[in-house]
C-alpha cells in the first residue's frame, strides 16, 4: 500500500513538474510551425487571403456609421499612425466597465458609445474586417499588454482557466500547449498557442476568424462546453495568452492550416 501511495505521489509530482511554463527563449509562434508553403502565403500580401479583410476594414474605417454619422477616421484619423501598436496591447482595461475588453469588444463599444450604431455581430465580416485592419497596424510590433493591478485578477483567472482540466477528454490548454507542443495530434503539430496573428485566416475555416473562435473550437475539441463569444472567461483567457506571449511580434493577418 505504502509503495503504491509512494508511486502515486511520484506520478503526481511528475505531472505537476511537467506543467511548467515555456522558457521565453523557446517560445515559437504558429508561423514557426507552419509549412514553407503556408509561410509563403502569409508573407506575400497579394497571396495572403487575410488581406481581403484588411482591405475591407480600410474601407469601413472611413465609412460613416450610426446616429452620430461619424466614421472611425473622423475621430482617430489615419489608422497607420493612430492604431500603431494598439492591437498588441489588447485585451485592455476599460476604466468605466472596470474589466478588460478585447479588440472586438473595444470596436463594438466605440460603435455603440461614440458612433451610436448597432454593435457588429461576433465573426461577422464587418467586425473581422475592422479588427484585422486595426491589428494589421501592429504587424511586427511586440505584444505588450498593460497588466496593471486592476487587470491582475483577470490575468490570474485566465491563467487558472489555461491550467484547468475540462471536457470529456479532461484536458487543460496547458497540457497540450505547455507540455506537449511540437508533438503531433493526429497529423497536425501542436503549437504553443501564442495569439500573435489574430484575426487569423485558417485554411480549415476558409475564412478569417477571431481568437475567440479559435478558443471555442479548442474547447469543443476537448468536448467541453465553449464559453459564449465575448464571455468574461474567454476575454480573461485571451488576456493571459497575450501576457504569455509578451514581446513576441504581431503578424496579423496570419495564415494557418
Amino acid at each position: 500500500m505504502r509503495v503504491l501511495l509512494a508511486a502515486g505521489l511520484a506520478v503526481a509530482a511528475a505531472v505537476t513538474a511537467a506543467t511548467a511554463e515555456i522558457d521565453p527563449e523557446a517560445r515559437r509562434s504558429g508561423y514557426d510551425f507552419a509549412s514553407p508553403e503556408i509561410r509563403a502565403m502569409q508573407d506575400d500580401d497579394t497571396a495572403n487571403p487575410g488581406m481581403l479583410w484588411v482591405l475591407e476594414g480600410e474601407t469601413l474605417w472611413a465609412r460613416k456609421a450610426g446616429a452620430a454619422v461619424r466614421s472611425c477616421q473622423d475621430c482617430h484619423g489615419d489608422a497607420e499612425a493612430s492604431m500603431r501598436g494598439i492591437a498588441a496591447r489588447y485585451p485592455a482595461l476599460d476604466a468605466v466597465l472596470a474589466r478588460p475588453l478585447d479588440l472586438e469588444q473595444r470596436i463594438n463599444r466605440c460603435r455603440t458609445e461614440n458612433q451610436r450604431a448597432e454593435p457588429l455581430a461576433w465573426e461577422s465580416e464587418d467586425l473581422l474586417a475592422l479588427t484585422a485592419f486595426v491589428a494589421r497596424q501592429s504587424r511586427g510590433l511586440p505584444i505588450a499588454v498593460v497588466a496593471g493591478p486592476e487587470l491582475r485578477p483577470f490575468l490570474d483567472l485566465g491563467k487558472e482557466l489555461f491550467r484547468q482540466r475540462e471536457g470529456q477528454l479532461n484536458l487543460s490548454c496547458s497540457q497540450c500547449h505547455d507540455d506537449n507542443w511540437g508533438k503531433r495530434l493526429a497529423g497536425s503539430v501542436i503549437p504553443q498557442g501564442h495569439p500573435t496573428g489574430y484575426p487569423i485566416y485558417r485554411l480549415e475555416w476558409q475564412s478569417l476568424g477571431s481568437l475567440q473562435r479559435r478558443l471555442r473550437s479548442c474547447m469543443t475539441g476537448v468536448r467541453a462546453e465553449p464559453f459564449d463569444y465575448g464571455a468574461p472567461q474567454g476575454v480573461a483567457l485571451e488576456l493571459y495568452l497575450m501576457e504569455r506571449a509578451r514581446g513576441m511580434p504581431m503578424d496579423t493577418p496570419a495564415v494557418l492550416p
Partner: protein
Amino acid sequence: MARVMINIPPRAKRGEIIEIKTLIQHPMETGYRLDNKGAAIPRDIISRFICSYNGDEVFRAELFPAISANPFIAFSTVATKTGELVFTWIDDNGQIQSEIRQITVE
C-alpha cells in the same frame, strides 16, 4: 462586387516571362453541404476564370466544387507589348467580375 487582389509587374522587358497572381473573395459553396435545418445549401462557385492580354486570351481555368473559398490563381505569360490585361471571373449565378491592369513593355 467581390474584393480582388492582383499582383502583376507594372513593367517588363519584351519576351520576358511574367508571373501573375490573383486572389478573389468568393464563398465557393460546393452544393454538397446542408444548413442547420438539413436543407441543401445551393452551389455557388466561380466556374470560369479568363485572362486576356490586349484582347488575346492567354489563360483560362475551369473551377470545380473542390476548390477552396477565396480562390488563388497564379499563372505566367510572356510580355509581348504594352497594353492591358483583363481578368474575368464568372460564377454560377452569372455574376461577372472584371478587373483591368496595365503593363508597360520595353
